[in-house]
């Protein structure tokens, strides 16, 4: 299934946040890593799409005073989601390998 570049970033962020992935935390992580500040609407829109596609699953969690007593919606990456990330990365690495003189620097990780 197709995945857009912003969706991919959101997916990666949700995956790397583990059990702590909900709207605000994903937004903060994206802001920290990419330097761009996605609007909360765009983010939720992407989260819903990813859930529809089956890459994410959600469950409802605790409320705090800061949230005016509203519950959080936590997201978790599914196995399909992980598969999608794998596929995207595979494609990228395959292409990048063919660029002469480009050192991907994968050993660093």
């Amino acid at each position, binding site marked *: 299934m197709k995945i857009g570049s912003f969706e991919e970033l959101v997916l990666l962020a949700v995956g790397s946040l583990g059990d702590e992935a909900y709207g605000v935390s994903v937004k903060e992580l994206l802001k920290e890593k990419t330097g761009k500040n996605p609007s*909360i*609407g765009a983010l939720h*829109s992407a989260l819903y799409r990813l859930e529809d596609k089956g890459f994410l699953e959600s469950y409802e969690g605790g*409320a705090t*005073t800061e949230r005016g007593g*509203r519950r*959080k919606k936590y997201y978790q990456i599914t196995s399909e989601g992980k598969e999608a990330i794998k596929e995207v990365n595979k494609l990228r690495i395959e292409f990048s390998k063919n660029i002469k003189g480009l050192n991907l620097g994968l050993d660093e990780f």
Partner: protein
Amino acid sequence: MNSKKTTEPPKWADRILKAFCNEQVIETLQGDLYELYNFRRKLGSKLSADVGFVFDMLSVIRPFALKKFFISKNSSSMSMYKNYLKVSWRNLLRHRMYSTIKIGGLSIGIAVCILISLFVIDELGHDKDFPNVDQLYRLVNVWDQPGQVEKWESCQPMIADMMKSEFPEIENAGRLIPYSGWSFAGSNQVRRAGRLQNAYEEGFAYMDQELFEMLGFTMIYGNRSTALSEPNSMVISEAKAEKYFPGENPVGKMIILDEQEDRPWTIGGVMENPASNNHIEFDFLLTLTSEEFWKGEQTSFCCSNYATYFKVDKEADIHALEKKLAELYVSSYVPYLQERGDVEADDVGKYWAFLLQPIQDIYLRSERIHDSFQHSDIKKVWMFGSIAIFILLLACINFINLSTAKSANRAKEVGLRKVVGSFKSDLIKQFLTESTFISLVAVILGVLLAWIFVPFFNTISGKVLIMPFGTWWFFPSCLLLALIVGLIAGVYPSFYLSAFRPIEVLKGKLSLGTKTSRLRGGMVVFQFTCSVILIVGSMVVYRQMSFILNKDVGFSKEQVVLIEGANTLEKRLELFQDRLLKDPHVLNVTASSYLPITGSKRDLNTFWKEGKKKVDKGIGAQIWRVDDDYINTLGMELIAGRDFDKTSNRDSASLIINETFARELGLDSPIGARIVNWQSWTVIGVVKDFHFESMRGEIGGLGLASGRFGSVVPVKIKTEDMKATLASITAVWDEFMPNQPIRYSFMDEVFKNMYEDVLRTRNVFFVFAVLAIIVACLGLFALSSFMVEQRIKEISIRKVLGASASLIFTLLTSDFLKLIGISLILAIPASYFLMESWLEDFEYRTNLDWMIFCGAGCVIVVIALLTISFESLKAAFINPSVGLRSE
């Protein structure tokens, strides 16, 4: 933690959020938004958190979050809107001529509106870009005597420092000398030290380091806080730096002005090129640090030559400060006057006031303040703005008139829609959609038109406008314009059309639009009233213009070449003049910096009759240093006494005065009278009054004193061979000044330039008048041809029964001519009052006579008649069988 305090985002935004979002998402979304809100609230102000909340709220209005209700309802009404657009499109295509007129008229109106808006935005944007612009003020002197109020900007040299040290509200103060001809201010010959070739440059002014910092010019090289702090330092603009020091950092390098090698100027910095929308627009700023133009000048109250600017504390009460400034000023100025025995000392205490004029107001709101800057006028901006709106209204009226007139054609559709279940509200929606659609098309065309005509508009308005396609606000405001115009133009027709009763309409009872309804007539009257006013306006402006240009100004401006920048000749000036006189093409030569043209050098002095200095009030008059051939060369008329004596030196203290000055001095026999300013003079002649400033103001007092120096050499030449004359003058100049290219202009052209703003107003008026007439005629044409279409059967029957072509023509045109007549009756008094008030600004003005109104009336009647008769004549000569065939 106080939970109440932490969750207070704007309620209205929260309500919108709830209204839009479905239940599945609202809980999490609201939670996230609140969390973000509180996060921002901790970081910054409530305002920024509120704004952030509103943006977040807007960002979540997306399909995933919307209630089902919006999505489902949207999709069904969407298809209705599609149908409305389809029907509108078909209607546009079916009546091509009417559609073209509707859309064409509207797009002309919109194009005018866009151009004028750009003009207005540009005018209003002057002097807004300085840092802390709200705190910057210019000090304006006010002489507030009942019946004799005067305002001017120039202050004595020490006022800036005096006020700054006395009042803590004044954070900073700085001075400026923008007056052309004041030492190096204005224009000079410029060369880089070490080079020979001079170039002529304009845009010099003196400025304090403090003012330079206050105005916050962006620096390319050098430091803003020290650029002008050294004596003899100067700041130049980027363009001039590139000209004289290409590819180098000019800081620390030297420049020679007017060949004065003993006084080189050091470049202290390079600033960005001055913006054309600043009133302070100079390329060369010379420092005032330790500058003293004569001994004791800086500490003397004698002379006011400094424009003074303040940076005032944000909290300061400006009115109170103005009062305090005046008190302090009076308390130090009056003793100075008393010491000198000046009779004005008491009046100064009574009538002196200060005005702190915000720097942003200088360009548009300096009416009746004497200064040396170019100004526009807020009234002119309003006038142009209202003209634009009127033309747009005219175009909207075309739309309304045509839509209601052609309602019969849409009546069946309305009937049918109602029969199959359409509500009135749906029909209103339909027609509003239609008009908005049409206005959107018109806006797109209008933007294109405006874009095409920007260069033309720039030439007539003297602006450098560009279409702001790149700005974020342009397209949204165009969209808004389309909506507004769509609503204005569509609201009446949509209510009118949607009110048809289906039974009557479908029965065919409805025969609307055969006669001009009262409303439609009223609108035509309105259109033509506007057109007539604009025609009269442009005719009056045109007349006033030619009146000024052709009025006897009291000197001869034809065949006079002005050689400029001749001050560098110094002692060889006389030799140069003699050489020119030997030229057979040349009739007369003189020299002076003072010319009867606005913008040349001026020197206002106060005079008294001798021995009355301590008794009488002083009389203000210009004193001009001119050479002995001045009156001869410029063709002024000496009405009493004699001219300067060329052969001797006896006229060093002689004065030739003009009639006004003689009258103001109250001299019965002026010849031989003795008057004083800082020296005493003997009046030897009286010259007939001539206009030495724009004709807006009265002729002031003037005295001519003999003195052979000046920067301009006016040369009176013979008419025959202009080319050869100029060539031989140039040759003589090059012989004297090989390193300075000659600069000359023609006096009649310079004179014309004085009235450039009037010329521009004339052109703009003319263009608007033409546009208004075009729009009005488009409407009239469409309306008349529609009437003919509706009455074609009536006409055919009349013809069959023997009516002549002329009778039918009269029948068809008389209705419209009546309307035109009414608009003439309305327009003539209105335009009379408008133009009277415009002419009041001029001291010397043309008259409004009946010829103008007659002319305008004839023009409009002829144009209207031509417009109507195109279709009416076709109808008058129609073959009746064609009109009756279908029955």
